[in-house]
Each structure stands twice: as C-alpha cells, then as structure tokens.
C-alpha cells in the first residue's frame, strides 16, 4: 500500500516532474484534438512529413537562440511550398515528393545541429524529447500555444468536418477549402513543434495519430472522439511519466509505448468494432433470442436455409 502511494506521489515532489506532467498533459490534449482531424482526413503521412520538415527550422532556432515554434513553423511552410512546386511535375506523385523533401529537411536539420556545441546530446533531445529538462518558460509557451490551437480548432470545427466529408460540395457551397487546408496544416505544424519537447521529433507522431486512432475505434460520434482522443493522449503521457520515474527509463519512449498499448487494447476490445468483441458480439447475436426481433434479416435467412435443406 505504501509503495503504491509512493509510486503515485513520489514524482510530484520534484519540480521537474511537475513541469513534465503539465507539459505532457497539455501536449496530449492538443495533439488529441488536432490528431482527430488528421486521422479522419486520412492524412497521417502529412503529419509524418510535417514532423520531419520542421526539424531544420527548430535546429536553426536552437543554434541561434530564437523562438523554436517560429523557426519550426517557417521551415514547415517552406518545405510544404517546395513540395507543392515540385509536385507540378506530373511524372511524380505528391507522396513521392514529400518523401524526398522530408528526408532532405531532416538531413539539413542534423547538419545545422552538428554545428552546435554538445551536438549528440541536443540531437538526442530533439529526436526523443527532453521532457525532464523543461523550464517554466517552456511550460508557459506550451500552455499559451496549446490554448490558441484549441480555440482555432474549435472555431473552424464544423467547417473542417464539412470539407473532410465532401470536398467538392464544400467548394461548391463557397467554403474556402484551400484556406481551411492551410489552417489544418498550420495546426498540425504548431502542435508538432510544441510537442517536440515532450516526446521528440520522431515520437511526436504517436501523440498526434495514436490517441485519435484509439478514439476512432471506440466511437462512431465525432464529439465523443474529440473528447476521448485528448483524454487517451493525456492519460498515456501521465502513465508513461510515472513508469519513467519509477523504473528510471526514457520518458518519451515510454509515453509512446503506453499509448501504443492502449491502441492494441482498443483494437482488440473496442465495442462492436474490436477484433475480440466483434466476434463475441456476432456469437451473441446467433444465440440470443432477444436479438431476433431486432435483426430480422439474419433469422429469415436461417429459416430459409433450414427449409431448403431437406428439400434438396
């Protein structure tokens, strides 16, 4: 009992852990909301591209000591522009061009970072996060940016949904589809940049995509999905931090492993759609007489089969 209490309260005695919890929870919430839009539009690959393409900007900002978010956003934008221009060549598909440029952006970021003193240490913190070394200023930045992102996502929610459902009709209605795309890309970019510190450049995708994917498995209501994804992201981040503290293992990696574990559980056990639950659900259907009235199609087919068999 005592050890459980220690497990729960121990981390809170340290200021760096309190900051880590704050940033992890905020990143989990913001990534969950933005990630839900990304997953529903089927653009997880774009999230991957953005997380790589912001890297050189963040590296430059780090080396020259200016705002990381600004640097990352500019780099992300320039990479997106390069992709748009080079995709004009019709022999190449857009995803190929994205593949070329996000690798290039990543390489550039590493070269820039190698000019800084303590290169390997800072590279590692960019790749895998440095959530245990966050300053008060960082916490405030994440809080403010996160709040702005949530407000924007809320403000354009119904427009984003309308475009994701049916682009053509949304355009015909006169909705500014291109501008809304830019807003969504900007949301993804800034979410990636502010989450970099928590889980790092490579693992940020896990916070963006995995909780939203879990939520999609659990519900058929977008409103519930928008609440579940942040809850799963924040909850996994907190649990990952606890485990990291208790066993002295890498925090960023553990957060990702926890959220991946949640994903696998959802995939197996989600109501109606999970692998195991769908199977028991189907079996329950065949056996339970109450369901016969609710689903007339199946029993009718069965009777038809039974009647036909002796005749044949």
């Amino acid at each position, binding site marked *: 009992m005592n050890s459980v209490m220690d497990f729960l309260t121990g981390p809170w005695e340290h200021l760096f852990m309190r900051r880590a919890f704050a940033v992890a929870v905020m990143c989990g919430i913001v990534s969950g909301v933005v990630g839900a839009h990304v997953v529903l539009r089927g653009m997880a690959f774009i999230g991957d591209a953005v997380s790589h393409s912001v890297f050189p900007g963040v590296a430059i900002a780090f080396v020259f000591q200016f705002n990381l978010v600004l640097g990352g956003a500019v780099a992300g934008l320039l990479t997106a522009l390069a992709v748009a221009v080079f995709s004009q060549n019709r022999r190449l598909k857009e995803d190929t061009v994205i593949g070329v440029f996000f690798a290039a952006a990543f390489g550039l970021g590493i070269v820039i970072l190698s000019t800084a003193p303590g290169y390997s240490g800072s590279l590692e913190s960019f790749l895998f996060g440095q959530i245990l070394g966050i300053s008060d200023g960082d916490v405030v930045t994440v809080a403010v940016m996160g709040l702005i992102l949530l407000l924007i996502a809320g403000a354009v929610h119904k427009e984003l949904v*309308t475009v994701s459902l049916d682009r053509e*009709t949304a355009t015909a209605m006169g909705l500014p589809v291109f501008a809304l795309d830019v807003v969504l890309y900007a949301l993804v970019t800034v979410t990636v940049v502010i989450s970099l510190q928590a889980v790092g450049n490579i693992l940020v995708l896990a916070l963006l995509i995995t909780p939203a994917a879990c939520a999609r498995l659990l519900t058929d209501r977008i409103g519930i999905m928008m609440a579940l994804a942040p809850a799963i992201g924040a909850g996994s981040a907190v649990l990952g931090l606890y485990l990291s503290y208790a066993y002295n293992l890498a925090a960023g990696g553990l957060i990702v492993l926890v959220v991946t574990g949640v994903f696998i559980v959802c995939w197996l056990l989600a109501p109606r759609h999970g692998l195991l639950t769908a199977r028991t659900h189907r079996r329950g259907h065949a056996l339970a007489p109450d369901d016969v009235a609710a689903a007339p199609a199946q029993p009718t087919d069965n009777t038809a089969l039974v009647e036909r068999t002796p005749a044949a």
Partner: protein
Amino acid sequence: MTDVATSGTPVLDVRSVAVDLGGRLALKDIDLTVRVGDLVGLIGPNGAGKTTLLRAILGLLTPHTGSIHLDGQPADRSRGTVGYVPQRHEFAWDFPLPVAKAVLTGRTHRIGWLRRPRAADREAVDEALERVAMTELRHRPIGELSGGQRQRVLVARALALRPRLLLLDEPFTGLDVPTQELLTSLFSQLSDEGKALLMTTHDLPAAADLATRLCLLNKTVIAEGPPDTLRDPAVWLRAFGVAKSDQLLTSLGVTR
C-alpha cells in the same frame, strides 16, 4: 423573387457554354434553360460531359466561353444557393457522424463562421429527413447505412439548404426498387412545389417517365424537349454515338 420566378425567369440559364478540360473541349455550345417546376433529365453516354456541366453550374469549373446564370445572377456570385447531390462515392462514409449531423453539414456555410446551428437550421434538417423518410434513422452512424439510405442522406443534405435548384448526379445508380420509388415520387413532388431539378442519369426509361423534359447531351446538346417529342430514333442514336441499336431504342421506349 417569387413574382419574378412565376413570370418565367429561368432558375438556371446556360448560354453557349464551352468548357475546356486540360486542353480538351469537354462541352461546347451548351444552351439549357431550367424553369420553376422543371424536372430535366440530362442523358448521355459516359464521357458526354454530364458531370462537367453540373460542375460548371456549381462554379467548380469556369466556362471557357458563354455564361451561366442562376435566378438572373452569374453562377459564381450565387455560390451556395444550389442543392447538390453528388455521386455516392464522393462522400466520406467512414466519418464518425450520425445521419442528422451529416445532413446539417449541408448548411455549414449558411450557419456562418463561429456560429452554432439555430432553430431554423434544425427545422430545415428535420424537414429534409422527413422528406426522404430517414427520421427514424437520424441517430444512426452514416457508416452503417445501406446504399439506398446513403443516397437519401445526400438528397436530404441538399434539401436542408431549401434550394430552388437541385442538381443530382446519377441519383438512381445502384439503388433498389423501393428507394428508387421513394426518390422518384419525392422528385415529382419537389417539381410540383415549384423547385427546379436537373439530374444526370443512365436510367433512360425511368428518366423518360419522371422528367418533364429530357436533354440529350454528347459534348453538346443533341436534342431537348418533353419526352414525348423525342420519338425520333435518329436523335437518340446520335446522342449515344451508335449506328443502330434496337436494344437501346426499346429500352428508351422510342420504338416498341
């Protein structure tokens, strides 16, 4: 507006429109007028430019030459007033939304930025669902609907706008008979109520029964008029670019 309409201003007026798609002339010399109460069937073979014409009317394509007017206004200034029912595969059916919310997205631009749906929006959705007989299924996730139910959702989404002009792209393709009958009687009712409808279709006999006018399209308008006046087999053969096909003509009811 109603006075103008009853005095015969066309709801849709397409004049000598040509559309160029990637250097290829997809449509040329298109003249088409749709008035209040018209139910026009747009008929033609694959690649005849039916969907292209709908897209031009919606302002998604800019005509190379000619003009398109809706209620006397240029089409690009009347954006968002036309009810559009796209082909079913244009819609993301895997999205986690219930039927009523999906129908409500037909009014997103009408509701406006930073606003929530008001009573008028909810009433329009309720009415639209009622008309396509989907009221009972309003809470069902759209991913669990059958093909016929999906088509009804798309029609309801367009009706939720309460448009004067409804554009329908292949509304009958792949539907079972009950859904076809439901939509057929709904479209006749709408035209009786003074809406204007323009629909593309492959289902020629159904179109001939339902439409007040037919427009035979193959890059340009081959013939146009009430179904009864289009009895000349040569016109149909020209529209479909075939030398002779008894099957086609029989299926059309042109020859018996």
